[in-house]
């Protein structure tokens, strides 16, 4: 029976490890607290080693968090406010639509309800050609100009989405 006991102890440990790995994969050191108006960028020292953090390294994250330009860059689509003609529209249900007025690209992010750990329950992301599956969405930082979200995709890729908060 010792083997069974070991197995039953390993499962929760695995779940906890996986959850931790996902939560730090967009560069979290500490998860921002719900209700805080500003979450400061993390310091690089406390993050996990590179192989455990697909897609980002500490300097990338710091640069991303220091740039408040509203933007979505993923899957071959680049929509940046400062390119011009990129419309950010906020709806009363909390969703934001990013539309390229010169082209056809269109992104809709519906974060859903935020949990206490700054991840979101049932987030939805649709891109120009249809719905995208996202594994998780978390709020990395928010101030009076913008909110930085980290979206994780099933292939372990991730992106930081920056949306305006002052509209």
């Amino acid at each position, binding site marked *: 029976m010792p083997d069974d006991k070991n197995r039953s102890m390993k499962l929760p440990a695995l779940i906890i490890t996986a959850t931790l790995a996902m939560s730090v994969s967009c560069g979290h050191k500490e998860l921002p607290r719900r209700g805080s108006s500003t979450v400061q960028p993390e310091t690089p020292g406390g993050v996990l080693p590179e192989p455990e953090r697909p897609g980002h390294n500490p300097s990338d994250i710091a640069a991303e968090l220091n740039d408040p330009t509203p933007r979505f860059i993923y899957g071959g689509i680049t929509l940046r406010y400062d390119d011009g003609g990129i*419309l950010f529209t906020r709806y009363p249900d909390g969703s934001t639509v990013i539309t*390229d*007025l*010169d*082209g056809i690209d269109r992104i809709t992010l519906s974060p859903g309800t935020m949990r206490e750990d700054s991840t979101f329950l049932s987030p939805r992301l649709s891109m120009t*050609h*249809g719905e995208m599956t996202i594994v998780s969405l978390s709020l990395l930082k928010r101030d009076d100009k913008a909110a930085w979200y980290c979206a994780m995709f099933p292939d372990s890729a991730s992106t930081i989405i920056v949306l305006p908060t002052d*509209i």
Partner: protein
Amino acid sequence: MSRFLSPVLTAVLLLTPGILSIQASGAKPQLGGKSEAGLCRAIGAAYRPTQLVADPVTVFPLTDGNATRTALRDRFNNRWASIDDETLAAVNILPASWWERNNDIAIDLYNTIPGPQEVNSVKKNYPPGIVNAPEWDNGVWQTGTTTVSGIDAAFYAPPEKFKGDFARAVMYAATLYNTGWLASIAFTILDGTDYPALTPYASRILLDWHRSDPVDDIETERNNAVEALQGNRNPFVDFPDLAEFLWGNRKGEPYAAEGEKMPLHSTYRLSADDKIHLVSPEIPDDAVWTVNGSPVSTATLPATALGTGSHHLRFRSPSTGTSGCLMIKIVP
């Protein structure tokens, strides 16, 4: 028994497996305010067929028939051919064999017209173009060769009377079916990109045909008939000036349909003629605007009033509760 279906049978066909439905994705983009690649992609997304007729021959009486549906327009012999003529077949304007992994183009009715079977064997997989050295000629259309960029290439020259129709069909195919695996001969006409989609040779020839043979009632009626079957229209028939915005003398300018206000877009010219209309299909009509932080009371601003540089626009709609922002640029 005739191979063609009566209108009643065609209506039934629309509900049977003879119609291939196509999955639509997302909202149809508007064309206004878009230019070049954005305009080309928007056309490709907005004008895609929602379904295709598996065997176009069966519906030719509706798309190319006479008033009594007893004869079909044979453009390759400049005549009406009886629908009982067993030699009539489906002829592709751009050869479907160019597309190695897409069969839709073979049955898309905007690329498919009736003609004698002989046409397919004579024109093979040649592109439409100018024929300088005819090898085959029936007095209405020809095949032969032309030297393009120092290379002798085979072409077919469409019937003179329908060159504009053929050009608009090719423009439609180029904007909707411009990517994927293409046979090398396709690159005479298509460049394999989203935009410009047509080679310089093709855009020059097609624009000439498009301008010299403008849209007529025959083509408009065909557009209506095909729309009833496929759920889409050929925009180059409805809005002929689209071709000028994509490849012609208005290339680079944002598109606005005649009589419509130009919707918001990224870049404006510092000119008395260029105005910023605070309208967009994406924004509610009752939006209240600020420009660079100051409220505006007018729906139209001259670009000269703002000056060159970046300008920040924000809106709030009292009726929908939506709000938004965008930046526009005014260039010299």
